[in-house]
């Protein structure tokens, strides 16, 4: 039962990833792509947590934390770059 629900959650997160990927590839503006990138990384954090649950290994959560940190820095840097060209 729990395994089935985890699989359903992974499928829903995968669908969200694909929708965000569509926006990431289509654009049309750079800022749209950055928003899509932000959503992609948030969905990926959830995916890493689901993988950690399925594998039963808590060490994967550290990967999710570092990934969230790096994505935050990336979005901030790109937004500053858009605003005034670094």
């Amino acid at each position, binding site marked *: *039962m*729990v395994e089935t*629900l*985890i699989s*359903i*959650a*992974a*499928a*829903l*997160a995968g*669908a*969200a*990833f*694909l*929708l*965000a990927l*569509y*926006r990431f590839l289509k654009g049309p*503006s750079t*800022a*749209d792509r*950055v*928003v*899509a990138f*932000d*959503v992609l990384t*948030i*969905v990926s*954090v*959830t995916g890493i*947590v*689901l993988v*950690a*649950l399925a594998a*039963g290994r*808590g060490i994967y*959560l*550290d990967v*999710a*934390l570092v990934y*969230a*940190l790096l994505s*935050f820095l990336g*979005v*901030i840097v790109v*937004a*500053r770059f*858009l*605003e005034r060209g670094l």
Partner: protein
Amino acid sequence: MDLLGALLLVTGSAFLLLGGLGLVRMPDLFNRIQAGTKATTLGTLLTLGGAACLQPEWGLKLLLIGLFILFTNPLSSQVLARAAHRIGVEKSPQTTVDRLAEDTGEAP
């Protein structure tokens, strides 16, 4: 407890899916930002809560990730929206009010 955690996982992932759908369907950048970040923040927090119900000994780390996302996601979306407003990203024709342009005295 296990069932509650799994149901929280599914609910959170459904919110992620709604956020992705909003990202595709919304008419302009600012609507996409609000659909994409609010829904995914809630979805991620629910998923982390579900994982904490399933594996209580991971609670501290999951709380750390959740707090980090809760603090940084609104911040990054706000910075991005301000940058997009300043470089003049096109608004949807249905936009009726632009408080930032009124405050700074720019043409809307």
